[in-house]
Every structure is written in C-alpha cells, then in structure tokens.
C-alpha cells in the first residue's frame, strides 16, 4: 500500500491527459459532438407504472358476471374499434403503452360504484386488456379482471349464447 498518494496523483495526470486528447480528437473529427448539448435529449425510457394483480376471466364467464352485481366493463381498444362494436354500457379507455391512464379516468372508475371491473382489449400478445387491467389495479382500483381473448372472444361468446 506504499505510495498510494503518488499513484492517485499519477491517475489524475493520466485522466487530465486523456481528457485533453479526447477534446482535441473531438474537435478535429467531422462528427464531433458540441461540448454542451443545445437541447435536451429525447429519451425513450418506459416509465414504470405500478402494476397490480388481476384475475383472468373467460369470455363466457365475463358475460355471466355481467348479469350479477354492478359491473363496470372497460374496452381498452381504440376509439374506432369501440365505435365498431362494444357491449352495452361499456366504457372506452384506450390503452397506451407509453401514456398512463389519466387521473380523471381513475377517479371516474373509482366513483362509478362498481363492485367489479372487467377489462377487455385486443386479445393479442401482449393483450391491451390485460395491461390496462394491471395498470388500473396498480393505481388502486379493486377487483379488476380481464377477458382472455379480448373483444373477439367476448363477441364470439355472445353469439354462442
């Protein structure tokens, strides 16, 4: 452990020299960076949303559940898909992988008085309905389920009834 101070001074000198070389090299290279960025970097880092636990529900069970108690049905699909088809009384909250559900929507769901929330989405992998259900559950909504297979399964199950 002898001479640690001298070693640290040497390290400092090397760092300074390397920095000077770096700055000179950056100045002469055609694709060199400006020393200070002129505008903030646009970053794509998914912000972690609190995700909760949700129950899976088959489409047939979802229809059965709708006949019992106060159920809130939420369509996680796009506005166009929602307009194309949706069960009566369903709400549309399009799921977005980047933007979180607005606080207003969360408040609306929480004050709906529903004892159970059933979400359905596109049924693909990953399923927008499942993702939205997990987000709602993580944001404090209780008793949230999602329909396996999404809108297609729900539609098929209704026709089969």
């Amino acid at each position, binding site marked *: 452990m002898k001479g640690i101070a001298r070693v640290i001074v040497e390290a400092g000198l090397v760092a300074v020299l390397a920095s000077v070389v770096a700055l000179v090299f950056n100045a002469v290279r055609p694709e060199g960076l*400006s020393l200070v960025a002129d505008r903030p970097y646009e970053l794509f880092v998914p912000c972690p949303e609190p995700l909760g636990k949700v129950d899976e529900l088959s489409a047939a069970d979802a229809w059965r559940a709708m006949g019992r108690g106060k159920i809130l049905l939420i369509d996680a699909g796009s506005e166009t898909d929602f307009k194309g088809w949706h069960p009566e009384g369903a709400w549309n909250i399009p799921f977005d992988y980047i933007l979180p559900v607005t606080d207003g929507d969360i408040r609306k769901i929480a004050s709906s008085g529903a004892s159970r929330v059933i979400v359905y989405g596109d049924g693909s992998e990953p399923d927008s309905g499942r993702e939205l259900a997990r987000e709602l559950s993580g944001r404090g909504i209780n008793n949230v389920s999602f329909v396996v297979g999404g809108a297609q399964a729900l539609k098929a199950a209704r026709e089969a009834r």
Partner: protein
Amino acid sequence: MNTAKGIRLNDVLTSSWLLVPMRLYIGVVFLVACVHKIVNPAMFAVDVATYQILPLYLINLMAIVLPWIELAAASMLILGFRARAAAVLTSGMMLVFIVAISVALSKGLQMSCGCFASQGAAEDPISVATVFRDLGWLAISLWIVFFDRKSFGLDYLHARFVQRRHV
C-alpha cells in the same frame, strides 16, 4: 495469515501469476467498453442522458472524455505501465457506474447500461446482476491498486533494465 503449506496470504495477493491475468482481464474489459463509445459519441451521449443523473451541460462532455480515460486506463493495464494508477482510474469509474446504475434501478428505469454497446433495454437491461458484476470488477481493480508490486509489464522491464545498468 499462514496456511498449512506456509504460503502467506500477502504472497498470494501480490503474486504476479494472479495479478497479471487480472490486469489483462480488466484492461480488455475497458478496452472493449471504450470502442463503441469512441466510435459513436452521439449514441453514448444518449446512453449517458438516459440515466437522468447529469445536468444537460455535462452530458456531452462526459460522453467525449470518459471513453478516452477508459482507453488510457485499459492500455496501461494491458501494457503494465503505471498499472496501479490505471487501476485507480478503473476503480473510480466502476464506482461511478455502480452509483449510476443503482440510482437508475431505484428510479425503476428500464434501460440498457450502455456499457459495451448502445443496446435497447430489451436486449441488455440493467439489473441487480449488473451492479454485482461491476462490484466484482471494482474489487479486482482495488486489488491491483493495493497489491500490484511491479508485476510483469513495461514497468517491470524498465526496473530490470535500470537495475542491470547499476550493476
């Protein structure tokens, strides 16, 4: 501390047979790490920015300077020239990386560490394992700082040369 065979722990820690491979290992790690950063400084600047730790005015400066310090430290470790000073630099950098990754993990950022290439979070996400990997490299760097006694390399050859001239 003595073992049954009478080998002292200090002899093991200062052994060239262990220190030289460790020096080469850390040197190669830093050499590989600095290449893409020097070739693509703009991409590395994005990696630095992604950590959301440094203020905007320091991001480009860090992206320009850090890879060259890595290159200098790596070359010195590989060549055995002022290896302890180089290991001080790698220790310092490892410490900075460990803090940065820990902060990013505590913020829940899903991102790549940007250590060896500018990959997406999906291919090379940071995790607790990344922190432990860097802690391992920090431990090896500190070992070199405190126990390297002129293991084989340029300094060793220079010392031998000087010794012969005096004899």
